[in-house]
C-alpha cells in the first residue's frame, strides 16, 4: 500500500512541480527536493525499522486486470530498499546539479525528473512482470524528454538513439514476458504475470535459453554492455546534468537490477549455461570501455565510457554465481551511483562555467577552483578503485567471485583496473592539472550548495568503502531468497 502511495506521491509531486512554476522558478525545484528528501527519510525509516518475517519491508497486492492474472504487486525486499534509497538520494543530487543550468521550463523539467524517478521506484519494487514492464516504459519517456528538450547541441540524435535502443530491447523483453506467461499457461492452465508464480515455471531448456536472452538483451542494453553500449556515450554527453546523473546513477542500475531479479532467477539453468558468455561480455566491457574512455577528449564522454567499464564488473560478478560476485555487483551498483553521479555533476558544472566539455579547452583549472579540483580528484580516485572507497569493495568482491568461477576471465578483467588508472588520471591531468589554460580567465568555485551534495556523496563512498556491512546485509537477504546460488 505504502509503495503505491509513494509512487503516486512522486507522480503527483511532478504535477505539483509543473503547476508551481507559476509561483516562482524556485518552486518546482523545492517541490522536487522536498519530495526526494521525504522519500529518502521514508526509506531510511524503513531500513531502521527492519524487515518482517518474510524479509520484506513493504508489500501490496491488488488485482489489476483480473482476466489476464495481472496484479498490482509491489514488494520491497533488501535489494529493492537499497536501490530505492539510492534513487531518492540521487534524485536530490540531480535536482541540485541542475540548479541553475536550466533556463526554460523549470516546472516541466522537475516534472520529468520526478516521473522518471517514480518509474524507477516502480521498477525496483514491481513483482508482477507486466507491471514491471509498465514501469520500465514509464521511466523511458520522461528521460527521453529530458534529453530531447534540455540537452546540448546534438540532443535530437542522442535522445532518439537512447529511445530506440531502449525501446527495441524493451520490446524483446515484452516478447519474452508474454512467451513466458504463455509457456506457463500451457503447463499449468493458469494465466498469471506474477513473478513468484513464474519463478516456479518449468520451461523446456531449448525455449528457456531464448526467453532468458530476451530479458538479458533488454537489461544488457540498459546496463549497458558491449556491444549494445553505444547509445550511452551519446545520451550522457548530450543530456542535461540532472539527466546524466539520473541516467548513470539510477537508470543503468535498473539493468543490473533486472538481471539480478529477473533474468537469472527466472531461468537459472539457462543462465548458468550462458554465464560464460555473460562474463565474457563483462570482461570485454571492462577493457573496451576503459580503452574507449581513454580515447575521449570530451569530459562527459570519458566518464560515460568509464561507466561502461564499471558495469562490466556487474556482469562479471552476477554471472560468477556465487555470493561474493553477487555482493560485489550490488556494492558496485551503489558505489558507481555515487562516484559517477558526482563526476557527471562535475562535468555539468564545468560546462556551465566554461561552456565546453572539451578537455583541450581546460587544463590547470585547479588554480581557479581548488574545491572542484579536490572533488574531481576524490571521485576519480574512487572510480579508479582505491581501497577505502566504495568502488573498490564492489570491484574486488566481483573479481574475487569471478575468479572462483573462471580464473582466466577474472585475470583478464583485473587488467581493467590498470586501464582505469590510465584514463582516470588522464582525465584529472587534462582538466584540473597541468599548465593553466590562458583562455580561462577565471572560474567560479563550488559553493555551499554543491559542496554539501558532494560531501554527502563522499561520505557515502567512504562509508561503503570502509564499512559496507549494512549494505551487504541488506542485499544478502535478497540474494539468499532468490535461490540462484549453489
Amino acid at each position, binding site marked *: 500500500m505504502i509503495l503505491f502511495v509513494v509512487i503516486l506521491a512522486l507522480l503527483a509531486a511532478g504535477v505539483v512541480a509543473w503547476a508551481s512554476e507559476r509561483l516562482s522558478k524556485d518552486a518546482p525545484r523545492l517541490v522536487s527536493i522536498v519530495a526526494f528528501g521525504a522519500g529518502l527519510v521514508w526509506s531510511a525509516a524503513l531500513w531502521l525499522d527492519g524487515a518482517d518475517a518474510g524479509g520484506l519491508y513493504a508489500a501490496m497486492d491488488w488485482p489489476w486486470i483480473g482476466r489476464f492474472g495481472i496484479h498490482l504487486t509491489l514488494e520491497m525486499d533488501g535489494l529493492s530498499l537499497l536501490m530505492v534509497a539510492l534513487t531518492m538520494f540521487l534524485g536530490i543530487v540531480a535536482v541540485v546539479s541542475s540548479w541553475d543550468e536550466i533556463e526554460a521550463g523549470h516546472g516541466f523539467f522537475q516534472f520529468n525528473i520526478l516521473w522518471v524517478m517514480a518509474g524507477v521506484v516502480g521498477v525496483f519494487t514491481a513483482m508482477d512482470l507486466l507491471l514491471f514492464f509498465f514501469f520500465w516504459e514509464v521511466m523511458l519517456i520522461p528521460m527521453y524528454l529530458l534529453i530531447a528538450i534540455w540537452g546540448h547541441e546534438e540532443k535530437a540524435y542522442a535522445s532518439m*538513439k537512447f529511445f530506440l535502443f531502449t525501446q527495441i530491447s524493451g520490446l524483446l523483453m515484452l516478447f519474452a514476458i508474454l512467451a513466458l506467461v504463455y509457456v506457463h499457461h500451457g503447463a499449468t492452465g493458469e494465466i498469471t504475470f506474477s513473478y513468484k508464480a513464474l519463478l516456479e515455471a518449468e520451461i523446456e531448456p531449448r525455449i528457456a535459453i531464448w526467453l532468458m536472452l530476451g530479458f538479458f538483451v533488454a537489461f544488457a542494453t540498459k546496463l549497458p554492455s*558491449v*556491444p549494445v*553500449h*553505444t547509445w550511452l*556515450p551519446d545520451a550522457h554527453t548530450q543530456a542535461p546534468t540532472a539527466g546524466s546523473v539520473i541516467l548513470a546513477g539510477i537508470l543503468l542500475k535498473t539493468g543490473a537490477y533486472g538481471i539480478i531479479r529477473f533474468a537469472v532467477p527466472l531461468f537459472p539453468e539457462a543462465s548458468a549455461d550462458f554465464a560464460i558468455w555473460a562474463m565474457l561480455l563483462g570482461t570485454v566491457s571492462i577493457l*573496451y570501455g576503459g*580503452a*574507449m574512455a*581513454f*580515447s*575521449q*577528449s570530451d569530459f562527459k564522454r570519458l566518464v560515460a565510457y568509464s561507466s561502461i567499464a564499471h558495469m562490466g564488473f556487474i556482469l562479471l560478478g552476477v554471472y560468477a554465481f*556465487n*555470493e*561474493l560476485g553477487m*555482493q560485489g555487483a550490488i556494492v558496485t551498483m551503489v558505489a558507481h551511483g555515487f562516484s559517477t553521479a558526482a563526476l557527471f555533476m562535475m562535468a555539468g558544472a564545468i560546462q556551465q562555467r566554461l561552456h565546453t566539455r572539451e578537455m583541450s579547452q581546460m587544463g*590547470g583549472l*585547479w*588554480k581557479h577552483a*581548488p*574545491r572542484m579540483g*579536490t572533488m574531481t*580528484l576524490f571521485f576519480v*580516485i574512487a572510480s579508479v578503485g*582505491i*581501497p*577505502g572507497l566504495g568502488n*573498490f*569493495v564492489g570491484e*574486488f*568482491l566481483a*573479481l*574475487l567471485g569471478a*575468479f*572462483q568461477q573462471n*580464473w582466466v576471465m*577474472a*585475470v583478464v578483467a*583485473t*587488467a581493467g*583496473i*590498470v586501464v582505469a*588508472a*590510465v584514463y582516470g*588520471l*588522464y582525465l584529472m*591531468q587534462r582538466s*584540473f*592539472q*597541468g*599548465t*593553466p589554460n590562458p583562455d580561462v580567465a577565471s572560474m567560479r568555485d563550488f559553493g555551499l550548495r554543491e559542496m554539501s551534495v558532494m560531501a554527502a556523496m563522499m561520505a557515502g563512498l567512504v562509508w561503503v568503502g*570502509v*564499512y*559496507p*556491512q549494512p549494505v*551487504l546485509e541488506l542485499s*544478502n537477504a535478497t540474494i539468499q531468497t532468490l535461490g540462484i546460488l549453489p
Partner: protein
Amino acid sequence: MLDWFWLVPALPLAGFFALFVTEGKLPDRIVAAIGAGSIGLAALVALGAGMEFTQSGEASYSQTLWTWMAVGNFTPSITLYLDPLSLVMTGVITGVGFLIHLFATGYMWKDHQEPEGYSRFFAYMNLFVFAMLMLVLGDNLLVLFLGWEGVGLCSYLLIGFYHRDAENGYAARKAFVVTRVGDTLMAIGLFLLFRELATLDIQTALGDAAQLDPGMATAIGLLLLGGAVGKSAQVPLQTWLPDAMAGPTPVSALIHAATMVTAGVYLIARMKGIYDLAPVAQFAVAIVGLVTLLIASFTALTQTDIKRILAYSTMSQIGYMFMALGVGAWSAGIFHLMTHAFFKALLFLASGSVILALHHEQDIFKMGGLWRKLPVPFWSMAIGSGALVALPFITSGFFSKDAILLTAWDHENAGRWFWAGGVLAAFMTALYTTRMMVVAFFGETRTEPHDASRINMWGPLVVLAALSIGGGWMTFSVLDDLLGAISHIPHTHPAALVTVALPLAGILLGWLVFSGRLRVGALVESPFGDAVRRFWQSGWAFDWVYDRVFVRPFLWVARVNKRDVVDLLFRITAAVTRGFHHIGALTQTGRLRWYAANMAIGLIVVVLIVASV
C-alpha cells in the same frame, strides 16, 4: 599503551582529515604543527606501545577494530597486527617519517612553485603515513592491499604535487600506472590465495600454507612478487622511480627512499611462509634483486641529476634487499631496509637542503665546492654516502650489506654468483657515490648557495646522521624468532675481505677519476664508450622499449578508435534505413492526381485478383 595502539594509524589519518576539511585555510604554522605533530605523536605512541610489546614477551599482538566486510566465508576485518617485523616497520615509518615531516615544514615553507600548497602537501604526507602504517600493520592481505594502494595513490599525488608542470603529471601517472601493473598481479595473487585457502588472513594463510599444492605456492609467490616488484621499483617495473623524483625532495626521501618502495620487501618477508614452500619463487626474488641491483648501479653512474642518482641508488639498494630475501637472509634484508631508510632519507634530505640553497638546481655539474659553504648538508651527505657505500665498521650500511653478501656466498645454488654480483654492484655504488660527492661538493664553485636552512631542517639531518652511523651498532635481533637470525661469518673469511675491500677500491678509483687525477676522457668519449654511456643513462633502454611495445600501440588504438568502431554497426543500420526512407519518400510527390493514378493501378490489381478467383 598497547590498548591505544590504534592511535598510531589514526593520528596521521586525523591529521589528514583536519587538513582536508579546512581546505588549506589554516595558517601555515598550524598546518606545520598538525602535519608534523600528528606523525610525531604517532611515533611516540608507537614507541610506547613497542616497548610495552617487547617487554610483554608475546610473539604478536593484534587489535581488531571492526569487520570490514563479511560475505559468506570471506570476512576480512580491520585488524592491526603487531609483531617484531611490523614493529620495525612501524618504527621506521613513524620515526623516519616524523623527521622527514619536520624537515619538510622548513623545506616547503613559502615554496616557490606552490606557495598555497603547504596544507595540501601535509595532507597528502599524513595520508601517506596512514596508508603505509595500514600496509605494515594489516593482519589481513586485504588491509595490506588497502595500504598498498593507498601509498601508491599518495605517491601519485605527491609526485604530481607541482601539478602545473605537465611533465610532473606525466611522471606521477607513470608511477601510478606502472605500480598498478604490479598491484594487478598482486590482486590476482590474492584471488588465487583465497581460492586455495579460503582466507586472506595472513597468519591463518601462513599456518595453512602447508596444504598448498607446490605449484600453487609458486604461482602465488610469483604473483605477490609481481606486486612487490612494481611497488619497489625492481626490474622489470622499475622505470617509474627515476621520474618520480619530480616530487618535492621530502617526498622522495619519505616515499621513494625510506618507506613505500620498501613495501615490496616487507610483503615478501611477511609472506615468508609461502616462499619457504616455493623455492622457485624465492629464487626469482633473488634474481630480480640481482638484476635490478646491477642495472641500477650502472645507470646511477651516468646520471647528472642528484636526485636521479639517489633514485637509482635506491633501486639498487632495494635490489640488495630482494636478493637478501631471495637467498634466505631474511633478517638481514629487513635490517638493510631499516639502515637504508636512515641513510637514504639522510641523503635525500641533505640533497634537498643543497637544492634549496642553490635555488632548485639539481644538476651536480652545476654545483661544486659546496663543502665549505654548506657544512651541515655536506657532512650529512658525507655520512649518508659513507653508509651507502658501506664504509667498513663505522657505518650502519656496512653491517647490513655485509650480512647480505655473506649469506649470499653461503647460498646453496648460485650463491657465488649472487655474491659476485652484489660485490660488483657495491664497487659501482662506491664509484657513483664518490662521483656525486666529488663533483657536487668539491672543485670550483659553479653556483653560489645561500643557506636558508633552519633548525627544523638541520635537526632531522643530525638525528638521521647519527642513526646512519649508530644504526648498525645496535644488535639487530628482534626478528630472530620470526625470520631467523642474521648469519655472521668471521671477517677474516676471504669473501668478507673482498666485500670490505672492493668499496674502498671504488672510492679510491672514483676519487682519482672524478677529481681529474686520472684521465679517462679518451675511453668515455670513444664511440663505444659514448654508446655505453647513453645506454646506461637511459636506464638500459627500458623506457624506450615500453614506449614502443605498450604506450604507442595503446595511443594509436585510442586515436584511431575514438569514434567507437562498435557504433559503426548501428550507424550503418541507421544509414540503410535512411536510404530506404529516401526511396520511399520519392513516391510522396504531394500531387493528388499522382496518388489517384496509383489508386487506379491498385484498383486494377485488385479487380484482376478478384476476377481470377
